[in-house]
C-alpha cells in the first residue's frame, strides 16, 4: 500500500538532513511500529508522509498504491486515505469538533466515492465512533482540542481517525503522556479500527503500547535510517537492552550528545 524508497529529507529552512535513506514497505492489514531514540527522525518521517511543507525531499520517493505522492498537498494526501495522528494536536478555538469533522469527512468521502452525510446522519455516525475511545457525546460539540487535557487530545486524534476511516494511519507518539487507563482505551480504539484493509504505523518511543497492540513488524530508526527491522520480539529486546547495541560506534557519541 505504502512504499517508501530511499527517502532523503532535509529541513527546508536550514537544509539540515534528517532522513538519510529510509526504506519501508507497508501492506494492507499490517501494523508496524517505528521505534528509536529521540531525534532519530521518526516524527519527521510521519510528517513528510503526510505532506508537511517544512521539509524537502531531496532524494527517493513515497508511493501510495503505486503512485508517487510527493507532489501532492497535505489535503490531497488526506483525500487518498492517509491520516496522521499528531504528537501535539493543535487547538482550533471556535471551531467545533463536529463541524471540522463533518467537513473533513464529506470532503474525503467525495474523493473516495462515498456518500456524503448530512448533519444528522453525521451526528449518529460520529457518536458511534466516540464509543470506541470512550469519549462522551458532548465532546463533538466542543472546540477542536481547545481546553482538552493531554489525554483527551490524544483520544480525540484516535476518534478523528475512526471517523475519517483512513487507509493508512501514522500515529505519532499517540501513547505518550497517557496514564495506563487512557493508554488501554486508545490501544483498544486502534485495535477496533484496524482491519484487513487498512494499515497502522505506530511511531513510538516506548514499548508499553505494544503490550496492547501487537505489531506485525517493528523497525528501529537511528540517525535517519532504519537500523533494524524485526517482529514483536525486537520491541521486547529494545525494552530490555535499549538502543545502544544498534548504534554503530562512530555515530553513538553523536546520538549520545543529542540525547
Amino acid at each position, binding site marked *: 500500500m505504502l512504499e517508501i524508497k530511499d527517502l532523503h529529507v532535509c529541513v527546508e529552512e536550514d537544509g539540515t538532513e534528517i532522513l538519510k535513506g529510509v526504506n519501508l514497505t507497508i501492506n494492507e492489514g499490517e501494523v508496524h511500529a517505528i521505534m528509536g531514540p529521540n531525534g532519530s527522525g521518526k516524527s519527521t518521517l510521519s510528517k513528510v508522509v*503526510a*505532506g*508537511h*511543507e*517544512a521539509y524537502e525531499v531531496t532524494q527517493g520517493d513515497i508511493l501510495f498504491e503505486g503512485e508517487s505522492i510527493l507532489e501532492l*498537498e*497535505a*489535503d490531497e*494526501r*488526506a*483525500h487518498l486515505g492517509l*491520516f*496522521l495522528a*499528531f504528537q*501535539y*494536536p*493543535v487547538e*482550533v*478555538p*471556535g*471551531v467545533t469538533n463536529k*463541524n*471540522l*469533522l463533518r*467537513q*473533513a469527512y464529506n*470532503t*474525503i468521502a467525495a*474523493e473516495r466515492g462515498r456518500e456524503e452525510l448530512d448533519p444528522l446522519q453525521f451526528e449518529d455516525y460520529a457518536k458511534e465512533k466516540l464509543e470506541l475511545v470512550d469519549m462522551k457525546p458532548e465532546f463533538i460539540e466542543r*472546540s477542536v482540542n481547545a481546553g482538552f487535557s493531554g489525554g483527551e487530545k490524544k483520544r480525540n486524534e484516535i476518534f*478523528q481517525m475512526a471517523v*475519517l476511516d483512513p487507509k493508512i494511519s501514522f500515529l505519532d507518539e499517540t501513547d505518550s503522556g497517557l496514564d495506563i487507563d487512557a493508554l488501554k482505551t486508545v490501544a483498544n480504539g486502534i485495535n477496533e479500527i484496524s482491519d484487513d484493509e487498512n494499515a497502522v504505523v505506530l511511531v513510538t518511543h516506548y514499548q508499553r503500547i505494544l503490550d496492547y497492540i501487537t505489531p506485525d513488524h517493528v523497525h528501529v530508526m537511528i540517525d535517519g535510517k532504519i537500523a533494524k527491522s524485526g517482529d514483536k520480539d525486537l520491541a521486547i529486546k529494545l525494552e530490555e537492552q535499549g538502543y545502544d547495541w544498534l548504534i554503530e560506534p562512530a555515530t553513538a557519541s553523536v546520538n549520545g550528545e543529542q540525547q
Partner: protein
Amino acid sequence: MSETEALESMVGGEYKYGFTTDVEYEDFPTGINEDIIREISRRKDEPEWVLEFRLEAFEKWKQMEEPDWPNVEYEKPNFDDIQYYSSTKKKDGKKAESLEDVDDQILETYEKLGIPLEEQKQLQGIAVDAVFDSESIFTTFKEKLAEAGVIFCSISEAIQDHPELVKEYMGSVVPKGDNFYAALNSAVFSDGSFVYVPEDTVCPMDLSTYFRINNMQSGQFERTLIICEDNSHVSYLEGCTAPMYQENQLHAAVVELVALEDAEIKYSTIQNWYSGDEKGQGGIFNFVTKRGHCRGDNSKISWTQVETGSAITWKYPSVIMQGDGSIGEFFSVAVTNNRQQADTGTKMIHVGENTKSTIISKGISAGESDNSYRGLVKISPRAENAQNYSVCDSMLIGQTSGAHTFPYIESANPTAKVEHEASTSRVGEDQIFYLQQRGMDEDDAISLIVNGFCKEVLQELPMEFAVEADKLLGIKLEGSVG
C-alpha cells in the same frame, strides 16, 4: 448556491463589487467654499436653519487640522479636488416617488449588489434605504413601517417632512465641531438615513441602508440619525461597496444614535468598501464618526461591525451611557489584507450609575497590512458601580502584517470594575497543516480558523448578515498566506 460555491465563484480574491455604473450626473463643481455649501443647500431645497448648521460647521472646519494621531499613513486628501455633491440626472428633477422614476441602470446596480428594490423581489423582513453617491434613491417598505408609526426615510426627506425631530437631535450626539471629519460632514453632508421609532414600539422589521459610491470624483458624506423613544426597539443594518478606482475616494460619515428610557438600538455594519489593490493603489478613505447616546435610564446601544474594506479606516463607534443602568456594547471584526490600514475601536463613556459596557474586538491582519485597536473606557466621577469588560484579540496571518492595540482606561470612580483582556496569535503553519491533513484545502483551513476566531462577534450579527460576513471573511483572506 452553497457557501463553498459562493467562495469558489470569487476565487482569486477579486473584489466583486468593483464595477462602475454608467449614469449621467448633474454638473457640480469641485472644491469647498461657502458658495458650494449654499449650492448644496439650495439644490436640496433646505430650510434656513440647515444652511446655518452647515455654514457654522464649515467655519469650525476651517479652523481645524486633520488629525495625525491614528496609526495610519496616507497622503492627505486634496479637499479642492473633491466633488462634495454628486447627483444623477432625474427624469423630472425630483426624488423618485415610485420605482418607475428610478434610472434602470441604478436599479440594475442594486440588483447586482444583491439588494433588489423591485417590490416583488424585495428582501423579506428588511426595509432598505438605498443611497447612491450623494442621494437616497429609494426606500422600501415605507408604508408598512408607517403603519407602526416608524419613520424610515432619507435624512433629506426628514429635514423636509419632520424638521422638528431633525432640529432637536441632529448634532446633539456628534456636535458639528466634534472633529475634523465630523465638521466637514456637517458642512457638506448629503444623504443618509433617518429613523424614528415612537414610544413603546418594536420596529416590525430590520431596517437597513445600503451605501454605494459610484462617481470617481465625489466624496460621500452621509449622515444617519436614529432616534428611539421610550421603551422602543430597532435593529439597523448598514452595508457599503464602491467601484475599483486607481484614485482614493473619501467617505466621511456621521452617525448619531439616541436611545431614550428603556430603548434599545442595535446597529450593525458590514463594511466592504473597495480597499485598493495589492500595491495599495486606490481604495476608499473611510473616516467616520459614529456615536450613540444612551440618554434615558436602562437604555442600550450595541454596535456590531465587520470591517473588511477601505484602504484607510479610522472609526470608533462609541456609546455615552448617560442614563442610569444603561448599556453600551461594541463587537468588532476588522480584517486587513494587502496594504490596508485600519485604526478602529470604540469609546465607552460611563456617566450614569450602574452602567455596563462590553467590548469584544477581533483584529485580523494579513499581507502587508496594519490593524490597530484603539479603545477608551472612561468612568466619570458620578458613575457609581460602572462595569466594563473588554477583550481585544489580534490574529496575524503571514510574516509581514502588523497588529497593534492602544487601550486607554480612565477611571474617576473607585467603585468601577474594569477588565481588559488582550491576546495576539498567529495563524500557525501547524494549525493549517493540521486542518489540511484532515482534508481541507489551505483557503478553507484559514477561513475555518478565522471564523472560529471571530465567532463571538459574528454571532451578534443578524442572520442575513452573518452569512454574508462569513463569505466575506473567506474571500478577503484567500491566498493570504504564502
